């Protein structure tokens, strides 16, 4: 059926005759809308009345009824009388229903884009950063209070929960941490050998890898992995508990969500991350040694001998001492984000992303602060 058959317009003196036919349904609504728009009476036209003949309409649904309503309303607004004749009986109800629903103000779409809008977004984001900092401080305080309470009454500590979390974030993370750090160590060694070889300083690769891995890379890689792997899991767990009102349930039963949910998780991270860091550093050194012996012709004995000469305990301590602090930051950010989750699935996704991004950012900032501190005390 052609589109033209839906609506035929003819002029009789000062009267406009509109003959509707065919299927006035959702599937044809697009054609129909164009025809209805075209049939609208232009201002200052000599036409005084419109007669819509619906006799030929075979099917009519809400879409068709609405377009009829739009045609009539547009006509009446321009001061022309409009009348419908021959509407088949079975469609009368739906046309009336749509007519009743029709006197609504069309709510506007908010689609303005101006400089003020842009500034508003910037301002909102800055305020959001401030709010995040405040929430971080608040959670740090709450965790400290919960920890002091545990020190006073050690029996209240959720030991089982903590062990469970250590299993999840520590023990189960071991394989992937070993693999990643092994690869990083191997890549560092390969790059070092490749470039140092040009001026015959192959063996200095041991200095470079040893110091870099123990002081910086080991702990950073492990923390980035933990933030992505366990931080996001904390946020998602706590977030979905929040969404299903489990956190509220805990609270009303007289439990403090911080000491039941947050504290065991953060303590678990503080215990697990230094261990993972140590394992990761050893794995990275092993990877470096392997590449040195295969690719750089530095025998394992030479590698170990050189390592013993250049690495002091200080280097190791500088790296490992950062681990619990970074764990604390990751844990707190993850728990703050989890408990900030609102009712929707979208909110949970946003909070999880925010948790990972923020914790990695803070880990790197913290690393910088430690670097300044260690430089100041000559370590």
């Amino acid at each position: 059926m052609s589109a033209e058959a839906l609506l035929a317009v003819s002029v009789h003196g000062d009267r406009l005759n509109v003959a509707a036919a065919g299927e006035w349904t959702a599937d044809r609504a697009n054609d129909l809308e164009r025809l209805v728009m075209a049939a609208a009476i232009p201002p200052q036209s000599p036409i005084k009345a419109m007669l819509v003949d619906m006799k030929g309409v075979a099917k009519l649904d809400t879409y068709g009824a609405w377009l009829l309503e739009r045609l009539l309303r547009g006509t009446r607004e321009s001061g022309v009388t409009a009348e419908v004749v021959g509407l088949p009986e079975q469609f009368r109800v739906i046309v009336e229903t749509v007519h009743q629903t029709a006197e609504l103000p069309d709510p506007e779409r908010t689609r303005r884009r101006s400089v003020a809008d842009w500034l508003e977004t910037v301002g909102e984001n800055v305020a959001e950063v401030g709010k995040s900092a405040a929430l971080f401080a608040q959670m740090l305080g709450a965790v400290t209070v919960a920890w002091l309470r545990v020190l006073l009454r050690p029996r209240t500590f959720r030991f089982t929960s903590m062990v469970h979390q250590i299993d999840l974030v520590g023990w189960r993370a071991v394989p992937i941490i070993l693999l990643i750090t092994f690869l990083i160590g191997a890549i560092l060694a390969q790059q070092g050998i490749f470039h140092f070889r040009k001026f015959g300083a192959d063996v200095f690769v041991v200095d470079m890898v040893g110091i870099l891995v123990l002081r910086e890379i080991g702990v950073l890689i492990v923390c980035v992995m933990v933030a992505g792997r366990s931080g996001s899991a904390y946020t998602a767990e706590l977030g979905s508990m929040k969404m299903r009102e489990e956190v509220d349930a805990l609270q009303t039963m007289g439990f403090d969500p911080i000491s039941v949910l947050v504290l065991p998780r953060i303590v678990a991270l503080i215990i697990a991350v230094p261990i993972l860091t140590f394992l990761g550093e050893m794995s990275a050194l092993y990877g470096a040694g392997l590449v040195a012996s295969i690719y750089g012709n530095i025998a394992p004995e030479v590698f170990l001998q050189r390592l013993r000469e250049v690495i002091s305990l200080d280097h190791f301590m500088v790296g490992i001492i950062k681990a619990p602090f970074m764990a604390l930051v990751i844990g707190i950010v993850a728990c703050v984000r989890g408990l900030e989750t609102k009712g929707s699935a979208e909110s949970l996704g946003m909070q999880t992303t925010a948790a990972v991004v923020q914790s990695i950012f803070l880990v790197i900032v913290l690393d910088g602060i430690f670097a300044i501190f260690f430089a100041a005390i000559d370590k």
Partner: protein
Amino acid sequence: MSLTDGVLSLFEDEEAATLDISQEIALRVRNLQVEFKRTKILKGVNFDVKRGEVLGFVGASGAGKSVLLRTMIGLIQPSEGTIEVFGQEFSKAKELRAQLIERHWGILFQHGALFSALTVRQNVQFPMREYLNLSPRLLDEVAAAKLKMVGLPPEALNKMPSELSGGMIKRVALARALALDPAIVFLGEPTSGLDPISAGEFDDLIRTLQRTLGLTVFMVTHDLDSLHSVCDRIAVLADGKVIAAGPMSTMLASEHPWLKSYFRGKRGRVGATM
């Protein structure tokens, strides 16, 4: 059949015939069986739903009502049996024909299942955008008209689902189910979680819309008041089969022990005297 044939047959489809929605029987279910891990949930369900009729499905908790509903709308694959929608078999339909059928029904999920990332307006417009090629103006106007039809104020258009009350969520979900002017509507426990007044209003709304739009309604419910006020016919699911079907008077007259305690028990009495 070789592997290539098997893969190719996934893309082949029967001609997407038009669905003749003026037929007498809207839904025809024959010998429908569903198994989960060797436990039979449905053991041969048979029933018809006539065009323009409201069929209410009742049954004890765990009798398989939700499984039946989910099987009917294609979320669960039946192990045996057929589901015909206006004469077209749905359970074996491939993509094109399945889409044609899905275009002609709307589903109200028990908890609304509104997309939480979209506003009310976008939720109602979602099926329209997918299936119809409409101008933004018409999309907005029809969405507003649908919302008004389910009794929501136009202010609700720009709200997010998380800002709505339980009753409003149901209404928006109903508006979304009706977005494409479907011929059949499936309602999963439409009044659960509503207070008796809202539930009554929702029942009236369903009845009014059903009459206005000439809908065929398949409804799973526990609400005796809904059964009284909305349903033309009631089917009872027990032990994986339909044990009784008919209007309320048949249910009330039945001597089957389960039916007796369900319809004439303590909670049934108030409704029965109405």
